[in-house]
């Protein structure tokens, strides 16, 4: 039996709004083991991003418990959460979120700065990851000089640079055309084969079909959790 990376127990999140408390998420029980590839689906506003933010330790649940690699996140301080985000999790965002003033190599190396890695080692690791996503020749470029698909590859390289166990991707292909999306999904599939646990949010069934397990949210509740029946994309 392999290690459980993510375990949520009746996790809920309610926001204070002008119209009173609003439950964006309630009673979510989910366990994800190491090496899994999970797609989260559901209509807009169903709480997918809210859930991902909880999984990524960017936010904390208002009810229930969340264990990340066996540690109860509610009991960790801000610095410990930052360290967890730095070492255990890699984030990939819909909007790429590269720092515009830094070269691609510096962007990829940034998590290593916060991990306290020496400069030379940082650079070597960053170049290695850039090469892995097929952008080894662009180390000195600025994000504005490359295409969206390439930017997302750089973002993935950045997510990978500190060798995380878990990659969290919230609509990573949301801003990309179908061809580029397919390339990105091929990359995720390859990473998953190498043993990295991946959780991604998507609206597209084709994309979700790359994952081996599909979880569906509706109005803040987890309503279905099924293995993928059939692959739709040739790339995965």
């Amino acid at each position, binding site marked *: 039996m392999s290690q459980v990376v993510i375990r949520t127990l009746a996790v809920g999140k309610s926001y204070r709004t002008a119209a009173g408390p609003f439950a964006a998420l309630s009673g979510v029980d989910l366990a994800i083991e190491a090496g899994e590839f999970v797609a989260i689906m559901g209509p807009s506003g169903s709480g997918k991003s809210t859930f991902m933010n909880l999984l990524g330790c*960017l936010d904390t649940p208002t009810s229930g418990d969340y264990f990340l690699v066996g540690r109860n996140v509610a009991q960790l301080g801000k*610095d410990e959460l930052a360290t967890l*985000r730095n070492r255990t999790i890699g984030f990939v965002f819909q909007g790429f*979120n590269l720092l515009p*003033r830094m070269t691609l190599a510096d962007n990829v190396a940034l998590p290593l*700065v916060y991990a*306290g890695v020496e400069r030379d080692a940082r650079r070597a690791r960053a170049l290695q990851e850039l090469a892995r996503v097929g952008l080894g020749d662009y180390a000195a470029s600025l994000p504005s000089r490359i295409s969206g698909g390439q930017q997302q590859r750089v973002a993935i390289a950045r997510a990978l640079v500190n060798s995380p166990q878990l990659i969290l991707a919230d609509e990573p292909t949301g801003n990309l055309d179908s061809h580029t999306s397919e390339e990105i999904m091929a990359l995720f599939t390859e990473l998953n084969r190498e043993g990295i646990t991946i959780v991604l949010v998507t609206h597209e069934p084709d994309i979700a079909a790359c994952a081996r397990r599909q979880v569906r949210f509706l109005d803040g509740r987890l309503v279905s959790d099924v293995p993928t029946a059939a692959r739709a994309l040739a790339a995965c």
Partner: protein
Amino acid sequence: MLKAMLREAWQAMGANRLRTILTMLGMVIGVGSVVLMMAIGQGAQYAVAQTISTMGSNLYILISGSTSTGGLRSGGGGGPTLTVADAEAIAELDGVANVAPVHQGTQQLVYGPNNWSSTVVGTTPPYLEARAWTIVSGHPFGDSDVRSATRVALIGQTAADNLFANDDPLGKTIRIRQSPFVIIGVLGKKGQNLDGRDQDDTLIIPLSTAQRKVFGTPFAGSVRLIMVQATSAEAMASVERSMTALLRQRHRIREGQDNDFYLRNLAAAADSAAETTRVMSVLLGAIASVSLLVGGIGIMNIMLVSVTERTREIGIRMAIGARQKDILTQFLLEALMISVAGCLIGLVLGIAGALLTNAVTDMVIVISGGSILVAFGVAAGIGIFFGYYPAHRASGLDPIEALRHQ
């Protein structure tokens, strides 16, 4: 890590160059004016201290005449009330180092075709020591010269320059009111006194000769001034008391009657001059510091703008593992870098300004390591003080909110 952050701070400064330069300008002006004003203030203090040291220390001047609410008025029917005998009696008092009766006035000095109007001081040998005059060539006159009213003179540098130009004055004979005087000594240079008068524009001759041959006073043995030097600063108060008592007794002044002499404490005058320049220098520094403060507020303003602009960036950094203190350090370093760079430039400009002031106005300036250190410390302090609030605000941002920020 710190090195990486320093490099990032440097890049951030370069990213918005004009804004960085304008922000820095506030610091440049602030530090520059502090350095300049301190240089001028300390220079003034130095100049006054220099002047005071040429004046002679622990000095009193007794002046004939009486003080009343109306100020100085002549007493005893117009003639000088002080006498050479008074001076001799004062010399016997405890705590008195030197006493010199003085009769001085402005006279025309003539040497060949040259003539020059100068202050002629008739006095006795202790005068030189009391006023801390040195003799650079020749020798002073002695008590015997005073007794026999010889026509010898010691000449100050300004008077010598004007009468003799490049000639050596020693041994030359000059005339004052037709009387010939032989220059037996040349006085060392002193510069201006506290009132701005050139102390070197002078000729010192024996008192008796001055009274008989130059000023022709009808009251032989009387003098307008007596210079008294106490042995130490501590002795001054007791000398003042015993001297006043002695003179009142010698002049038979009854209880309740005004003194027929006026006593001026030169040491006190020197102290107050020094105090005045000290206050002036502090004031200059304080005014300059205001511009430093304004510069600091400019930094805070720009850092706040920068934090707002870069909210999303802060969110991204937090998501990939930046701790609060990493964000805090990053913004603090940026503020510090702007203020220290501004400080360095301000320092250079301030020193250049001070040297220029000195070249153009020949005002004395003093650039001390201390003032440079203070300027630096203040700049660093301002960077930290005014950079802290924006940096703290940045580090306290909620990662989710920051990431969502457009």
